[in-house]
């Protein structure tokens, strides 16, 4: 059974918390420690961003984090290597790599799948590779029991949502707003309604992300969802830290209240 499946089953109704961090930001040496710190403070799954030079779907925070990480030499291979290090002491928390297709394409699908599998990656989420264009990659991922996470947006039609759910594995990621990562103005009523609809098409867990920034917004969208993803707000806080110790502290302080708010649901 996949680690994602086990994790969601063991929640028994609790909401999963999925923090996102950009690999290598603000310091490549910190990333693995931050991942452990996230788990310690209540993260159930970790999304690790693979820095890309042209992150079209990301807002300014993750764009800048990616640019900064790239200047420190972080790319797809070093991101995978971080997962490998993380796995030396954690074999239970699923790790989802999130990014864009070109680095995967450049590495070659076979090579990517082999390295990701060997490192202990559980799933892959590519913002610019919808199911229609993912056939070859999806087959190769499946052959190694890796899962490809697909997105559903507020603009996705019912017919598309059904099609996406047919291809989905791991969980379905609902993009809570029309916009880039880290935008404001979540309409939680609309989100909750859409999540209910998605659940008609799939038994997979549904995670909500884009625009979730704190305990209040997390609780607001988690009514029917199984998980919430928080990225830009956390990345932004970490960027202001001068040392690993302060980054760990900030991470913990950020995650804890969200964890307890979700647990109170």
């Amino acid at each position: 059974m996949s680690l994602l499946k086990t994790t969601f089953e063991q929640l028994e109704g609790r909401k999963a918390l999925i923090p996102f961090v950009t690999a290598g930001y603000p310091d490549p040496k910190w990333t693995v420690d931050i991942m452990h710190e996230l788990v310690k403070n209540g993260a159930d799954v970790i999304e690790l961003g693979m820095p890309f030079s042209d992150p079209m779907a990301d807002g300014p925070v993750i764009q800048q984090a990616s640019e900064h990480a790239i200047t420190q030499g972080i790319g797809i291979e070093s991101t995978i290597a971080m997962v490998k290090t993380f796995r030396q002491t954690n074999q239970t928390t699923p790790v989802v790599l999130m990014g864009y297709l070109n680095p995967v394409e450049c590495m070659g699908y076979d090579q990517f799948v082999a390295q990701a599998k060997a490192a202990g990656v559980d799933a892959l989420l590519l913002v610019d590779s919808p199911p229609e264009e993912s056939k070859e990659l999806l087959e190769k991922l499946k052959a190694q029991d890796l899962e490809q996470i697909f997105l559903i947006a507020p603009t996705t039609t019912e017919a598309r949502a059904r099609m996406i759910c047919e291809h989905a594995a791991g969980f379905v990621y609902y993009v809570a707003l029309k916009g880039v990562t880290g935008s404001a103005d979540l309409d939680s009523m609309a989100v909750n309604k859409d999540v209910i609809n998605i659940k008609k098409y799939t038994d997979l867990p549904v995670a909500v992300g884009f625009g979730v920034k704190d305990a209040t917004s997390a609780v607001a969208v988690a009514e029917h969802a199984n998980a919430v993803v928080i990225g830009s707000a956390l990345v932004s806080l970490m960027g202001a830290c001068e040392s690993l110790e302060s980054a760990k502290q900030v991470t913990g302080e950020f995650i804890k209240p969200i964890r307890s708010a979700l647990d109170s649901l």
Partner: protein
Amino acid sequence: MTIKYSNYPDEKGHFGQFGGVFASETLMHCLDELNTAYRKLKTDPDFLAQFNQDLADYVGRPSPLYLAERLTEECDGAKIWLKREDLNHTGAHKINNTVGQILLAKAMGKKRIIAETGAGQHGVATATVCARMGLECVVYMGEVDIQRQAINVYRMKLMGAEVRSVDSGSKTLKDALNEAMRDWVTHVDDTFYIIGTVAGPDPYPQMVRDFNSVIGQEAKKQFADKVGGLPDALVACVGGGSNAMGLFHPFLDDSSVQLYGVEAGGHGVESGQHAASITGGKVGVLHGNRTYVMSDQQGQIIETHSISAGLDYPGVGPEHAFLNESGRANYVTINDGEALAAFHSLTRVEGILPALETSHAVAYGMKLAKSLSPEQNIIINLSGRGDKDVHTIAAIEGVSV
């Protein structure tokens, strides 16, 4: 097996392995809507009549096919014909596409127009049609390009467009495109994105090509009328590749016509400082389609270099990638110095100032003409005029204007 080029792309927007729809899920529905609307309108007699009337009365088409006698003499080879897209309203081929897309935007009931621009020609062409239609217009432009194309920035502002400076990444065309995509994803309900080149997710590559195909259709007829038969070769510069695709497309199934796409060689392809995605790049995915892109070992898009802002782009339209792979078209490079020399040649012997982008095509066309015989004919797409570049050229040559 002979490939029937005019049948491409397929239903899903693929040109062989290239093209497709590699877009954020938020945009998928609106790309579907755009596709449906475009398929319906492209054969609609009223839409086509309006488009053709606008091209005639507003753009000033047909543009002449001009025999450059003195340039031909200087090269002492094939006859050189210039397809004068520089004489269009706003001074380049870009207006053909914006005139078409704005009609589509209107038909789809969109209220707000966004665009990206590199050299500023597409931005100007978009601001122009927005002014004419009374639609709100936001143009994204890299900070670096804003510096080197100040006159075009001012032209856009005069026409009521808002020019937004983009300071992420390399601060050039690719980053302007990223930012326009981000805007689109945020305002997807009321906004129409007028992409300026034959790139982006389907249906853009075929749509921008179709609107620019008037170039090749006219050239074909004009050549038949003036000379008879078909020209031996066509030459056009390729950044994203819209002017080249517009000229080439009506000739794709005429296999006797050689096609030459001229990429920006910058300081030379071997220097690594160039914008020749086909010649010096590899297959990848950027801005919604699979094509040749310039990226490093880790798949990061790398900064390109060209003397001309309009060619300074790390990708290329997927149909060009396909024509390269199939061997139907030849892709060659011209470096900065050669383009500059060609700019001077054409200006001096014909009294025509070509854009720096276009100068790449002129440079290769001159080389090609020299290698052919006097009874042969080549058509160079004179895609844009060079007024916008005179300050850049003066600065390079140490002249104060």
